């Protein structure tokens, strides 16, 4: 009996210890089960907090007067405050209320501290952020903001609001993700907003084009690399109207592959580069915006459409809000959680939206250092200068150091080793980081021109093609940002000698030289990341063709030219228009090229050609041909650019689609030859036929006959919206969409896409429509977490409510009163 008693005790003790351990610490990737499953404080508490209370009151330190927040039926908070700073305090509060985890994780990612939250898996990402000097630049910016300036006070007010919410909630109201991670939310610092802006700058401007071109040089020589990685797009329909009513094509011959460039720089950068995808369809951000003058609209009012294409996440990158300060501010639109202000939107006089300019604002310099392993000095104009050394420590919640990074800087920026080279980087985002002043001030503009002028004053980076339209009927666009002037008016595609200060930037472009247009004779303006100025008129290097994309611009210009009585609903329709200029141009060439093999064409080629010939070249959800076309183009990319492959089969660089299309018009160019076939020399027709047959056979093997559902565009290339922690259950994967690469809605097949569609009509009473994929709430258990996805997928827009006084928003879905509190 005693032995049995001991046995019982032992079993119970082991069971208790194991369960306690699993409940409190977790096992492997499984989070602590007790913390996770606790029905009051664990994941299930998300169910209880899914909806906001119908009425609530909270204290916010620093408020000068009470603020009333009414949420409409779409969950959009309308903030009615008596001062601007009170409004931004309230904005911080309501954003935290719906998106607390997103605020936290985005900021930690932007400041190189993501490891604190998610552990070692984020170390590489953190190290990259730090090595680029982003947290250091944000801190320097914060310290430089005048204590009494609006830029600083807005950040502080927003921070007060976020922290007031954090202080007001019990642990059970923390977002569900903290249970999964067994972590706690961090307090919000005003500096965090600057980290967020740095992150935006990195996403939109960290595009070092020189690496690709050098890597290509190492394979095919300088002439060929310059030819397939040109400074200017080979298809032109620029943002700043050039007076033409059609795009023009550069038909100059493309230089054939030549002898490799064996310089140290080229070999080093080629060794570091690897691309295995078809670049054209690889995930990329982009954007569209356009405006139409009253004389080309049916109602006689200016119209504006905006549609930034960014990474699609759940919750969405955007949060919709309306801010009213009587007599001062009345602005509606979307903000990014962490940004104190409306970034894209409208007031009662002006509407605005952005697309990315893609300007080259980064240069690299090869430095001469005193020690090739751990330099302490670098040489400039014959003298040695000290390398600045920054030691950054990442700590866990208990203050223990979990990582230490040592960063090196020259006067140009971060210094890092690539192969045997020490390269320093100069990047505008580090020199003049963005703060909130621009969009806070510009939101009060009353004309399109005033809006752009205000932004030009306060917006150094990321360079954006800012379009605006106003109630007076004016439309305007300007590519706003700071652009460097290189020595000798050179380009930014050369790695310069850092030992000579003459190689440093010589200043910035004057505003008058920026790509811009106001009320052009054509009656509309459009940007879709194409090259901003016609190269025949460009005075200075702005960026390389690598940063631009032309297809969407061609399509929107085609649509706008064809419609002289545009309606808001037509604008909505344009946003998901399934037609593709790229497909039109390619299909003509593809059918012509593959027709050459007429003597005894293989069955697959006959069937593939027949299928493609029946396609209307529209990326509708139900069509079965687009996938064949895209797969064939992907194969073409791999077959055509084999000269840029290394021994692993990966390409060191991939030219853009307009270059590929230019080669289609040069059927005997040596690039078409497939090196794998030795003495046999292929031309365009052979490669395109092979690419098409391979595509057809692959798809049949994978999805069965073309009539099957596997070929349906919406099934084979759906949009994906990943949860911020990539948790599948909280993500929306497999969302069918109309559109594809090169169409105005390029959301298909990637985790990128149309992130905020907006149409505004600037009449006597502004009318607006909008939608983003996701929902206002960041709580996966909430009905407001993904309630907009179905409409977004169908290309529908919600009508936006824009009450100027609180009383106009009757029957609010939720009501919140914020009272002045003590800190």
């Amino acid at each position, binding site marked *: 009996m*005693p032995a049995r*008693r*001991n046995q*019982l*005790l*032992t*079993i*119970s*003790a082991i*069971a*208790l210890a194991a*369960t*306690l351990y699993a*409940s*409190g610490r977790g096992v492997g990737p*499984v989070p602590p*089960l*007790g*913390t996770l*499953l*606790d*029905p*009051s*404080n*664990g*994941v*299930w*508490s*998300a*169910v*209880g*907090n*899914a*909806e906001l209370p119908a009425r609530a009151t909270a204290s916010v330190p620093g408020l000068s007067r009470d603020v009333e927040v009414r949420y409409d039926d779409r969950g959009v908070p309308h903030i009615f405050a008596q001062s601007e700073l009170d409004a931004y305090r309230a904005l911080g509060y309501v954003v935290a209320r719906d998106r607390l985890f997103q605020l936290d994780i985005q900021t930690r990612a932007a400041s190189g501290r993501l490891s604190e939250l998610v552990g070692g898996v984020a170390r590489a990402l953190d190290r990259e952020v730090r090595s680029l000097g982003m947290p250091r630049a944000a801190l320097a910016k914060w310290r430089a903001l005048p204590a009494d300036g609006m830029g600083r006070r807005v950040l502080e007010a927003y921070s007060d609001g976020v922290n007031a919410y954090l202080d007001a909630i019990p642990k059970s109201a923390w977002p569900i993700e903290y249970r*999964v991670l067994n972590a706690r939310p961090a307090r919000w610092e005003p500096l965090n907003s600057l980290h967020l802006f740095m992150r935006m700058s990195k996403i939109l401007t960290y595009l070092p084009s020189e690496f690709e071109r050098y890597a290509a040089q190492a394979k095919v020589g300088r002439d060929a690399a310059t030819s397939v990685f040109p400074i200017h797009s080979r298809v032109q329909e620029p943002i700043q109207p050039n007076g033409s009513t059609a795009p023009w094509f550069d038909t100059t011959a493309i230089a054939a592959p030549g002898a490799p460039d064996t310089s140290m720089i080229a070999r080093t950068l080629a060794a570091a580069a690897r691309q295995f995808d078809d670049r054209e369809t690889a995930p990329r951000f982009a954007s569209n915006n356009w405006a139409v003058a009253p004389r080309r609209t049916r109602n006689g009012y200016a119209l504006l459409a905006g549609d930034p294409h960014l990474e699609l996440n759940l919750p969405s990158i955007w949060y919709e809000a309306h801010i009213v300060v009587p007599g001062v501010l009345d602005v509606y639109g979307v903000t990014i959680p962490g940004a104190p202000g409306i970034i894209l939107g409208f007031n009662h006089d002006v509407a605005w939206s952005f697309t990315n300019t893609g300007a080259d604002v980064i240069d690299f310099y090869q430095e001469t250092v005193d020690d090739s392993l751990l330099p302490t000095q670098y040489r400039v104009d014959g003298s040695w200068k000290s390398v600045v050394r920054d030691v950054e420590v990442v700590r866990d919640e208990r203050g223990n150091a979990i990582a230490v990074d040592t960063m090196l800087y020259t006067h140009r920026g971060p210094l890092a080793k690539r192969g045997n080279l020490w390269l320093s980087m100069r990047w505008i985002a580090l020199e003049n980081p963005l703060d909130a002043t621009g969009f806070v001030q510009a939101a009060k503009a009353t004309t399109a021109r005033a809006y752009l002028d205000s932004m030009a004053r306060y917006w150094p980076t990321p360079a954006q093609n800012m379009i605006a339209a106003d109630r007076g009927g004016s439309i305007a666009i300007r590519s706003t940002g700071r652009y460097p002037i290189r020595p000798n008016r050179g380009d930014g595609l050369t790695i310069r000698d850092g030992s000579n200060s003459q190689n440093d930037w010589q200043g910035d472009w004057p505003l008058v030289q920026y790509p811009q247009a106001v009320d052009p004779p054509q009656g509309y303006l459009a940007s879709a990341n194409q090259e901003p100025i016609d190269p025949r008129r460009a005075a200075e290097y702005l960026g390389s063709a690598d940063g631009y994309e032309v297809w969407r611009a061609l399509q929107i210009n085609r649509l706008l030219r064809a419609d002289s009585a545009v309606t808001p609903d037509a604008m909505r329709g344009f946003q998901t228009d399934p037609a593709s200029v790229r497909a039109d141009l390619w299909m003509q060439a593809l059918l012509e090229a593959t027709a050459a093999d007429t003597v005894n064409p293989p069955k697959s080629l006959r069937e593939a050609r027949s299928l493609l010939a029946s396609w209307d070249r529209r990326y509708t959800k139900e069509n079965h041909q687009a996938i064949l076309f895209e797969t064939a183009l992907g194969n073409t990319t791999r077959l055509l650019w084999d000269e840029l492959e290394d021994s692993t089969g990966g390409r060191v660089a991939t030219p853009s689609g307009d270059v590929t299309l230019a080669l289609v018009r040069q059927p005997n160019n040596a690039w078409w030859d497939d090196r794998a076939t030795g003495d046999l020399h292929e031309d365009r027709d052979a490669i395109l036929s092979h690419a098409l047959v391979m595509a057809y056979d692959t798809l049949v093997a994978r999805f069965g006959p073309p009539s099957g559902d596997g070929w349906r565009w919406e099934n084979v290339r759906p949009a994906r919206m990943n*949860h911020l922690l990539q*948790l*599948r*259950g*909280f993500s929306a994967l497999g969302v069918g969409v109309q559109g594809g690469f090169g169409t105005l809605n390029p959301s298909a097949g990637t985790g990128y896409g149309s992130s905020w569609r907006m149409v505004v009509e600037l009449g006597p009473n502004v009318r607006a429509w909008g939608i983003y994929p996701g929902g206002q709430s960041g709580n*996966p*258990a*909430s*009905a407001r977490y993904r309630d907009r996805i179905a409409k977004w997928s169908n290309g529908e827009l919600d009508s936006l409510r824009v009450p100027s006084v609180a009383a106009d928003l009757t029957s609010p879905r939720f009501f919140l009163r914020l009272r002045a509190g003590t800190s």
Partner: protein
Amino acid sequence: MRALRDIVIVAAVMAIATRFLGWWAVPIVAALAALWDRSASAGATKLAVAAAVAWGVLLLLQAVFGSSVTALARDVATSLGVPAPVPIVLTIVLPAILAASAAGVVAGVRRWRSPAAN
């Protein structure tokens, strides 16, 4: 009847303690209840049932006053790569194991210290 009454009382205490203290209140309440109730192995079973009832009721309350528990359970299960019912089943089973093992340890220690007992 007495057993049912005991279960209800302990379940209520566990639910309240969990609400305000967190998951670790379950083994503590179970251990204290086992010290109080000397009915040995039958006590462990009762406490396991009480713990399961406590968390089950808390979960039910979330469902009544909040959004869909089953929808969230499905999403959590998908995220963790387990079948949909697993999170709910675990939420019932975990406190039961915690309570039963805590009670078992208390009972075992008591027997070990008092060999004459039972």
